[in-house]
């Protein structure tokens, strides 16, 4: 049985707290990082299968973070959640390895569906 641990990375504290409350209420185990660097430290200790990453982060941005995650963890699902939408940004996200792209404000039910689909896909990949 795969873990249902999600890592959310966003530099806006109110967003982090709202996502933590919402995903916890929905039955997921969730951790938060407010920067890419903090996320990479957490990844050294905890195994995450699903990521929700803001793109505009202080220091390393979300695109670069996704590339890092992909390099070492190919069997994971990464979603971009961003406050600005452009065609070029979607191309960059796909090229970096994001599985999907959401523009804020996005309903939590949409993110819950994305998380559930991610865990089902991962279970299938692992033949569970």
């Amino acid at each position, binding site marked *: 049985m795969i873990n249902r641990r999600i890592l959310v990375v966003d530099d*806006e504290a109110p967003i982090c707290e709202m996502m933590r409350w919402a995903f916890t209420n929905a039955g997921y185990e969730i951790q938060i990082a407010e920067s890419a660097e903090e996320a990479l430290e957490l990844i050294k200790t905890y195994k995450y299968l699903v990521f929700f990453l803001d793109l505009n982060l202080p220091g390393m941005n979300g695109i670069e973070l996704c590339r890092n995650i992909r390099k070492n963890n190919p069997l994971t699902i990464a979603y971009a959640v961003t406050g600005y939408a452009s065609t070029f940004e979607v191309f960059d996200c796909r090229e970096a390895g994001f599985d999907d792209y959401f523009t804020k404000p996005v309903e939590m039910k949409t993110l819950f569906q994305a998380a559930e689909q991610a865990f089902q896909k991962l279970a299938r990949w692992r033949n569970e």
Partner: protein
Amino acid sequence: MRVLIAEDDLTSRIMLQAVLSKWGYEVTSASDGEEAWNVLQRSDAPRLVVLDWMMPGMDGITLCRKLRAQDRVDPLYILLLTSKGEPNDIVRGLEAGADDYVAKPYDNEELRARIGTGQRVLELSREVARRQKLQGVLEMAGAVCHELNQPLHVVTGYSEMLLIDLDESDPQAETLRIIKAQVDRIGELTRRIMSITQYRTKDYLGGRHSIVDIEEASSGPVG
């Protein structure tokens, strides 16, 4: 296109007005530099200007310098008409701010070609200004929407989760639904603003101001 001609000699002014009109230009005439200066201070002034060099009072060169010293929203294209054909004189004219010159007595076809060049330059500068405005609008829109979308995401999430927990019959549920609907409407508006592709404005407060027409500038009506 509208043209201003400034020529003190009556015969020359009439002939110039006639050929320019024949070529399709809408001509405004001035008989000296002072009159030309006054015409060019109006908000609806022509941007294509044909100046005689030698005029009583304010001559063409002085007028050129005064016009170039102004900080104008719409730049002018200035063609100097001159009987002074020496290289030094030509340099003086260009350094004073003329964009081109035509030596008198001028050949009509050469004059027509040089005025045509001025028209193309003005149209190009208008297109550049339009694109710069659009770029400015897009950059501002992107920055504002990015910042607005952060708190919107928080409010959307909390109102959505609270609605899940509230009973349908709870009176506060209806209030919360209204709040969420308005927040969703703002979210749709920021999405529309981020899809702006053209610079389109509309009158605001009876034409006293212009604002970006989001519906025209992006695609489809705002919900």
